[in-house]
């Protein structure tokens, strides 16, 4: 049903958008410090972006496989589960695995954006905070976070738009998931279009996706304008 598909997409967006923002923020903070080997880590952080989505989906599907996946084996040895479990036939684990396969590829881009933002903080602000005796969290809250606010807004809206795009991991990993749980609107439309050949229903769902997307695009342009104004200061 289309309503469950919309709710699944909403849940997916709720899972991925904060995750992308938090993970990329943390990673950018880590990568902005100067320690030995940070250059190598910066390159490694960019690597997942070059992988096609289907390959990432395949890796996670094989890792969480029921009979011989590595995840089952590690959990068994750690003692967390008592026997192998089929993760893809449970609702929430399937959604989380699809989100994981999707996040692995989407995180480098916001990480780079935030890293560039952190590196563009003028030194005077950092020094002023240091002179005023700010501890680490206060330093982060006052200097870094305020400077990065427009970029974080851009990242949030960009992640929301991209969450609507997600098609490949679903196709490879779950093909709709247990009882249509991971069937996002993109996969739903594809299934109606090329599985059931029901072009009418597929077309109708695309119009609804379009409506949501237009709202998000408008937000995106607002975010860009805010970002441009702020960074010019």
């Amino acid at each position, binding site marked *: 049903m289309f309503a469950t598909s919309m709710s699944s997409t909403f849940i997916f967006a709720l899972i991925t958008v904060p995750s992308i923002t938090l993970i990329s923020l943390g990673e950018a903070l880590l990568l902005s410090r100067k320690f030995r080997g940070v250059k190598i880590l910066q390159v490694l952080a960019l*690597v997942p972006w070059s992988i096609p989505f289907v390959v990432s989906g395949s890796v996670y599907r094989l890792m969480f496989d029921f009979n011989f996946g590595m995840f089952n084996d590690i959990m068994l040895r750690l003692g967390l589960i008592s026997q192998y479990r089929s993760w893809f036939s449970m609702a929430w684990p399937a959604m989380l695995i699809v989100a994981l396969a999707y996040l692995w590829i989407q995180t480098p881009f916001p990480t780079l954006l935030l890293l560039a933002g952190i590196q563009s903080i003028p030194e005077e602000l950092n020094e002023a905070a240091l002179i005023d005796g700010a501890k680490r969290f206060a330093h982060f809250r006052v200097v870094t976070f305020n400077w990065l606010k427009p970029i974080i807004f851009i990242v949030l809206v960009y992640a929301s738009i991209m969450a*609507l795009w997600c098609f*490949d991991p679903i196709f490879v990993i779950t093909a709709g998931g247990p009882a249509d749980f991971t069937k996002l609107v993109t996969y739903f439309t594809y299934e109606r279009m090329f599985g059931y050949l029901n072009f009418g229903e597929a077309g109708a769902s695309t119009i609804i996706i379009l409506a949501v997307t237009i709202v998000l695009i408008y937000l995106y342009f607002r975010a860009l304008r805010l970002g441009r104004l702020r960074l010019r200061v």
Partner: protein
Amino acid sequence: MVNLSLQSEVEIHSVPPFYFPPYPSLRNYWFSIDINSAVKYFVEQKQAISLFIPGCMKDFPRSIINSAIVGLIVASYNILAGTLGAFALTRITFKGNMPLFYGSIVGRLIPPVVIAIPYYMIMKSIGLLDTLQVVILVHIVFTMPFTIWILNTYFLAIPTDMEDAARVDGYSYLEVLRKITFPLIKPAIVAVGIMSFMTSYGEFFYALLLTATGASRTIPVIVGSAMADPIVIKGLVCAMGVIAIIPGLVVVMVFRRYLVRGLVAGAVK
């Protein structure tokens, strides 16, 4: 995945799984390129898995060539048309300047599903449905807005004094672009070419929709189809996946500085 691709079929299915291949062999790579030897090998070993090799895998070598051709053509077209387009949009003022630019960005941000049905109908009526050209066309449509956006940002950041002086001296627009602006934007052009190549390389949805036979399929479609089968031959699929990652890794490793500069300038400003 590299681990799985080096194991043989019997070893993959053992429980608990091996973390390092006990007897590594490059057999799976050879099988994924030459599927007949795979069938022969499995039949010799009297394994039932010889019946379950998905038919789409016989197109894998062809799909590597297809992906390479499509990616290179899309990247070069992006560089050429993107530079010209961004130059025109920023330096030359004509009516409908900015709305054209914003409209192309909107075209990029719409999920591909939305426009998929009309694309299919149009391509079917033109008759291009199973060829390589249609994949190239669709990938160009997908990568051009981002290209023009990034190059726009770069062009706006370059002061126009030298170009105005050259125009006064009598250069035409094309000569100004070639002789004066081009050396300044070389890093951006490299970044744009690489970004469009990577986007076209990983594009799955339209390549799946618009191609039917192996004559024009690209790598993600083959890997995805082999993976979405009910019975998955893990060794072969993993070998195909590793082969699929290698160009991306190489490109990112070699060109990382340009990529960082291009990505950052594109979406922040």
